[in-house]
């Protein structure tokens, strides 16, 4: 059965810290991985990763995929209170032909 596991489940840091969030997956015929930030209700798209070793970057956020290790990391540098949210990853495999979502990492950044 395809599955996506995120770690840690929750994290509390102080402003200015750097955090690394992990997404591990077991899917048939991996095709792509998505990262989202969820505040309140709607997940906001962050990155789409399909190739190993190519870093995607947007401001203080970056992400990279390691197909050999069946995982991806999301890094946030110089965290701010506005980064407090649930971070979700989703993985698409052509076994199920749909995105499977992880349960998310709840990040809280303290001032």
């Amino acid at each position, binding site marked *: 059965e395809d599955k996506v596991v995120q770690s840690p489940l929750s994290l509390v840091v102080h402003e200015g810290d750097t955090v690394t969030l992990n997404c591990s997956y077991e899917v048939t015929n991996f*095709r792509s991985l998505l990262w989202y930030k969820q505040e309140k209700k709607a*997940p906001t*798209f962050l990155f*789409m990763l399909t190739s190993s070793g190519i870093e995607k970057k947007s401001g203080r956020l970056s992400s990279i995929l390691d197909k050999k290790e069946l995982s991806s990391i999301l890094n946030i540098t110089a965290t701010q209170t506005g980064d407090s949210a649930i971070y*979700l990853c989703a993985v*698409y495999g052509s076994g199920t*032909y*749909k995105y499977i979502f992880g349960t998310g990492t709840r990040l809280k950044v303290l001032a």
Partner: protein
Amino acid sequence: SAVISQKPSRDICQRGTSLTIQCQVDSQVTMMFWYRQQPGQSLTLIATANQGSEATYESGFVIDKFPISRPNLTFSTLTVSNMSPEDSSIYLCSVSPGQGANEQFFGPGTRLTVL
């Protein structure tokens, strides 16, 4: 990316009633999906809304409980029928530019509470 709106934003409903959620996109999109997020859980795909034909439902979801319409490439509705407290969730529509492993963008969501 497309601008997606959902109505209503939230609702409180009585057991046994039905609620229809609307999803409107500001441009034509190939794929539209409906997800559910139960309290403390992650997102679960309910169905793919197909334009002009019946939706494709995931295991555990049936048309009688969650009828879906998609009359054109910019609009879809999801109805939650004969509601029970277990249907209390956030319901999200999402869109994608194509079939398969593409980006998906989510609407603002509908928070449903069933008493």
